[in-house]
């Protein structure tokens, strides 16, 4: 019998028992949709957590710690396999003061190599990167830290009269520098932490670029980024003023290595650990999260599978009824020359058909539920917690990746076929003589 004829045969029987088949498909749909929706919550929470961790941090970043980091050691690391960039940031560890017109700030100065920074993903919001030692890039929130003491005092005095609560006072934005920063000259001074006094050796720097804002709202970047060529001048100033007995250096080092691809991070961290460095990589944290969620998702799929198993009782029932009802027809077909395998295949096709249709509807339904959940749940949770902004946060409650669709479909269709197997087997064992004796 040709496959198309087998399908025709199956669809003819399905049409004859529309209501019963519909109810069975409904049960299969509910079971599968339950599995997909349940597991999608695991995928959703995992995704939310991961993006929370990854926000503002690169997954390929490896932080390197050592008491005796040097520029030479950092340069040597550039030669390692799969290393895309080695960013050695040197931070001034002295009292710092920056002045622009009548505004001052205590922003920190970081010296780095912009070539490596760019490779690692450092991007500007506007302007360009420094091309000489006296050109700098400032952080996105640099202007907010440039304040005028008099203006602030006056502003605070005004607010006191308004009789505001402490919370309201905290939320107030202090007056700060509002004008364009690009091409402005700032005066940078270092001094002693003990006296908070400047060494009175100002360095004039020109702002040529503003860095892109950090990915998270609550992180502020008011740093000044200068090229490594400024180091010698700053060290000279420091050497002239530091206490004679002190052997402290001006700069503290912070070294980050960036791998070319995520899968190579492990190789780099292992190699660095072997060389005696302490390292930290976000990928290690992600690995632990992945293991935890793998177990969670497997658990959720297991619970969902139970629902499918319950729905399979319906399929078993429907198919057993179908075989019983069609005993005489099966007998006639066998008498005419239908092989037992063909009879079995026809019934397995019918149960597979129920499974496939149930699965297709369940997948469509699950996507609809997922989209609705991601839209509605944040609003409900936000309303319940009394936080209107919750709805605007990027929280994903449910994600249905294609792998989940494949797993759920495989489980659902397999369970449908397994539940149809016994009735199909029963059909092949029908005795022709007994079947032909049945009354019409």
């Amino acid at each position, binding site marked *: 019998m040709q496959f198309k004829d087998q399908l025709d045969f199956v669809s003819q029987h399905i049409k004859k028992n529309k209501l019963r088949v519909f109810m069975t498909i409904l049960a299969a749909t509910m079971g599968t949709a339950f599995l997909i929706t349940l597991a999608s919550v695991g995928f959703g929470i995992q995704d939310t957590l991961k993006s929370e961790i990854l926000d503002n941090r690169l997954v390929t970043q490896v932080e390197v710690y050592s008491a005796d980091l040097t520029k030479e050691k950092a340069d040597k690391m550039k030669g390692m396999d799969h290393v895309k960039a080695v960013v050695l940031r040197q931070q001034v560890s002295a009292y710092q003061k920056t002045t622009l017109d009548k505004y001052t700030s205590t922003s920190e100065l970081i010296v780095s190599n912009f070539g490596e920074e760019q490779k690692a993903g450092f991007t500007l919001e506007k302007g360009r990167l420094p091309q000489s030692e006296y050109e700098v890039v400032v952080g996105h929130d640099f202007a907010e830290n440039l304040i005028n003491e008099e203006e602030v005092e006056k502003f605070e005095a005004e607010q006191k009269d308004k009789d505001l609560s402490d919370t309201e006072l905290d939320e107030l934005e202090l007056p700060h520098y509002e004008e364009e920063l690009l091409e402005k000259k700032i005066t940078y001074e270092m001094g002693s932490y003990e006296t908070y006094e400047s060494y009175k050796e100002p360095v004039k720097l020109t702002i040529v670029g503003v860095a892109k804002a950090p990915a998270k709202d609550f992180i502020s970047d008011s740093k000044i980024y200068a090229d490594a060529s400024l180091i010698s001048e700053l060290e000279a100033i420091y050497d002239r003023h530091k206490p004679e007995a002190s052997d402290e250096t001006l700069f503290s080092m912070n070294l980050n290595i960036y791998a070319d691809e995520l899968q190579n991070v492990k190789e780099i961290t292992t190699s660095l650990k072997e060389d005696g460095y302490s390292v930290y990589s976000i990928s290690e944290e992600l690995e632990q999260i992945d293991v935890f969620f793998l177990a969670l998702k497997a658990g959720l799929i297991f619970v969902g599978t139970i629902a499918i198993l319950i729905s399979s009782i319906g399929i078993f029932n429907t198919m057993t009824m179908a075989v019983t009802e069609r005993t005489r027809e099966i007998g006639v077909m066998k008498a005419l*020359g239908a092989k037992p395998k063909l009879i079995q295949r026809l019934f397995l096709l019918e149960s597979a058909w129920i499974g496939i249709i149930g699965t297709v509807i369940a997948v469509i339904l699950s996507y609809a539920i997922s989209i609705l959940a991601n839209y509605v749940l944040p609003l409900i949770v936000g309303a319940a917690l009394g936080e209107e902004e919750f709805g605007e946060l990027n929280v994903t409650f449910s994600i249905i990746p294609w792998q989940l669709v494949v797993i759920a479909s495989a489980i659902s269709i397999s369970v449908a076929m397994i539940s149809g197997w016994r009735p199909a087997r029963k059909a092949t064992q029908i005795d022709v003589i007994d079947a032909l004796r049945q009354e019409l």
Partner: protein
Amino acid sequence: MIHVEHIQHSFKIGKKGKERPVSVLKDLSFKVRKGSIISIVGRSGSGKSTLLHIMAGFLKPESGRITINGTVTSDFTETQSAEFRLDQFGFIFQNFQLMPGLTTFENIELPLKLKGAPKAERTKQVKQLIQHVGLKEVQDHYPNELSGGQQQRVSIARALITNPPIIFADEPTGSLDSETEQEILALILSLNESLGITFVIITHDDEVASIADEIYQMHDGVLKAEGVHHAI
């Protein structure tokens, strides 16, 4: 064509654990010539239907051998038996055994579908046969919309569609009135003459049996040749 040798068969009856065997076929041997009609006549319970079931491969004999066209069929597995039936046999049943959900056309087409014949070929063959057996008017009717005679014609057409060399007929006129019975018997005779099909007819009706070239009387599992009649 059909060679039945020393066929014996018994059924177990009674409660489980206390069954006792009842012999239904006792050492039967006979031959059926190619292109002939034979009738096996007997009362209910004489074993004639069991003999047909064994010859058709629905049932395996306890002992003995059946050879059809040189092939020993009594040792066949269920699948081999099904394949052989589809290829070599046609069946006419007392209560027609048509598929209630299929039209006249589809019922006749069914054996060709089981054979895996392409649709175009099936349609051509069925149309020709429908014309031949006079069912064109009712080709889209379902079995419950047909008279007994029409249903049996459909059943005969279904048996003929694969051009089998042998047709087994189990009480072919048992559910029909005498006028329709004559029509069906005439059709069987004409098919035998025009197409050379061998018919094995099981009946308790002497009139039906009389169209045969050879008549066998079945009595308590024993077969006796009765001779040749031609009533019609």
